[in-house]
């Protein structure tokens, strides 16, 4: 009893000291310090576009929300199970593909995006590829049950990777790349144009639930800067003008041009071709019997 009491007093002292510090008052016996503005949430995982990695129950996203895989999803799950060794570790490799299957199943927007016929008309996919969907908690539990791994294993993967949306986004998830190669080509001007046109700030969803705008890190299309990814598609070579047209066309279900929004063809520069003007020279294959050790 004696030691418990003294422990209690010690804790009270510490708590009082902390209270003083967080209120900006100097701890007793030390010179006055400026108020500590240390953010509790300084770790990188929390600073990500997804916000908190803690699950908060919302209507439609609780442990008890029913979730079932559709027959098409079941076929995909079966296919992914075949790719990895049939061991407990191998089955854990399936967590990532299964999370993608869940997102593909819950993608509402894919059918409305019509790709304009163009040289690369095969940019369009028949089926949603997953970036327009999200992963509810119940789905994570379903995956854990299916694979026989712990739920925490699925939570870890789902919170580590930025593309698994743990909250429902708008129908069109606009992911704007603002890393330096895009930034110096005007990515923040594009962001300002989108924010002005949609009336939201980065990280928010429009009131009609159509568009969510997030800033993401390098998307790997740097020679076509600036660019955005909307659900599964890349829209590149944007200007503040053509991005507004693009968003309106997406909203109205009109045909959109995927890839570069100007006359560029893939990663070929706007000034045109500078190499590969003819066939490769020399013999395509040498005499393979002459290969030395």
């Amino acid at each position, binding site marked *: 009893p004696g030691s418990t009491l003294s422990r209690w007093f010690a804790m009270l002292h510490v708590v009082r000291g902390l209270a003083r510090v967080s209120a900006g008052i100097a701890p007793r016996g030390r010179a006055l310090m400026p108020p500590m503005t240390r953010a509790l949430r*300084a*770790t*990188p*995982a929390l*600073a990500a576009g997804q916000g908190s990695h803690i699950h908060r129950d919302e209507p439609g996203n609780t442990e008890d929300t029913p979730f079932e895989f559709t027959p098409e999803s079941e076929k995909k799950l079966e296919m992914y199970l075949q*790719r*990895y*060794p049939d*061991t407990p*570790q*191998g089955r*854990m*490799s*399936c967590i*990532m*593909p299964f999370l*993608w299957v869940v997102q593909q199943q819950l993608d509402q927007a894919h059918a409305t995006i019509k790709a304009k016929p163009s040289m690369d008309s095969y*940019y369009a*996919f028949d089926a949603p*590829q*997953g970036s327009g969907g999200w992963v509810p908690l119940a789905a994570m539990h379903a995956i854990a049950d299916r694979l026989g791994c712990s739920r925490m*294993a699925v939570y870890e*993967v789902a919170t*580590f*990777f*930025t*593309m*698994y949306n743990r909250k429902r986004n708008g129908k069109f998830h606009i992911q704007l790349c*603002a*890393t*330096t*190669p895009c*930034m*110096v*080509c005007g990515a923040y001007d594009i962001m300002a144009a989108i924010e002005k046109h949609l009336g939201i700030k980065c990280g928010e969803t429009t009131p009609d639930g159509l568009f969510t705008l997030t800033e993401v*890190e*390098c*998307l*790997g*299309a*740097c*020679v*076509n*800067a600036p660019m955005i990814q909307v659900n*599964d*598609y890349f829209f590149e070579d944007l200007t503040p003008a053509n991005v507004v047209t693009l968003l309106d066309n997406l909203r109205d279900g009109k045909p959109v041009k995927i890839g570069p929004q100007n006359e560029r063809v893939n*990663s*070929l*520069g*706007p*000034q045109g071709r*500078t*190499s590969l003007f003819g066939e490769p020279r020399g013999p*395509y*294959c*040498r005499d*393979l019997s002459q*290969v*030395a*050790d």
Partner: protein
Amino acid sequence: DWYRTKDIVLLGPDKIVAEVKRSGLRGRGGAGFPSGLKWSFMPKNNTDKPQYLVVNADESEPGTCKDREIMRHDPHKLLEGCLIAGTGMRADAAYIYIRGEFVYEAAVLEKAIAEAYAAGLLGKNACGSGKDFDVYLHRGGGAYICGEETGLLESLEGKTGKPRLKPPFPANAGLYGCPTTVTNVETVAVSPTIMRRGGDWFAGFGRKNNSGTKLFCISGHVNNPITVEEEMSISLRELLEKHCGGVRGGWDNLLGVIPGGSSVPIMPKATCDDVLMDFDALKEAGSGLGTAAVTVFDKSTDIVAAIGRLTHFYAHESCGQCTPCREGTTWMRKIMDRMVKGEAKLEEVDMLMEISYQIEGHTICALGDAAAWPVQGLIRAFRPQIEERIMKAQAGKL
């Protein structure tokens, strides 16, 4: 593609690796480690565990967009390369880890893999050579750290993509604990051509120890941003003038160039005037070739803000496993945010440099180095700009 692949596979692992060694191919994923040597690290007499080739198609380095070109336009080059490189390293299967954002490229690769299986080029008795070789595609989920080889292996195994300590090296204990080699897409995709045309042909491009061709992705303030395959050791000026229409506003409007993706230090114009684009020359110049993702900045750029945005990138992409990187990248980001506005003290420039030295080399993986180098490059090359901004802010003129 797939021309006489059976004959190449039948040459056997030793001849394939010898040819790649002769070609002088160096890893195209950023580190530039000699590929023939790397592939020869795989165990040769292992019978109890399967061996794997893992292709690193997680192209997340800012400025890099070369692997997507190979994957979406020439997927069969990659698949044939998987088979040949896999034969060279005595692998039983290959996993291609593609980043989650490359949705179209993944779809193209899935289709190409299905085509290759249907034509008997992969799978059981690949190309009729008697070797069974499977290729599987695995989609990532949006994490730069999964481009690090052990981070990639962790992610492939279904865990969070936090890198492992090396040793043990992946060639001894990699994917699922089996001998694995992780290679970049470009390195693997060029191996069939090396086998067909000869290692000496490949070594004929570029200077000694820097042989072959490289896909350069030039972005930023050029008139013709483009992805182009060029010979190694081409001079930077020739690369920009010949393929990119020159720097916006003329060569004298150049402020600096990041020659190899954001992880290498920026080079000021004085260095850019006569530097050659290859591994050794750029290392001597204080930078590095990395992934040959050339980002060009002209004089209109706010260079402090540009590198400041990179610190945001590294702070965001840090996996959080080891303290120097997790805390250091966040700390550098906060200091850079203030320096962009000029709200700093002059001593803090040296402090920032010291922080970056404390991060570099003290981390589990190379993301710490990659985060430290841009800041060091900025301070080394553009310290006057930072100091000018600080002094202006202190004088109330900003």
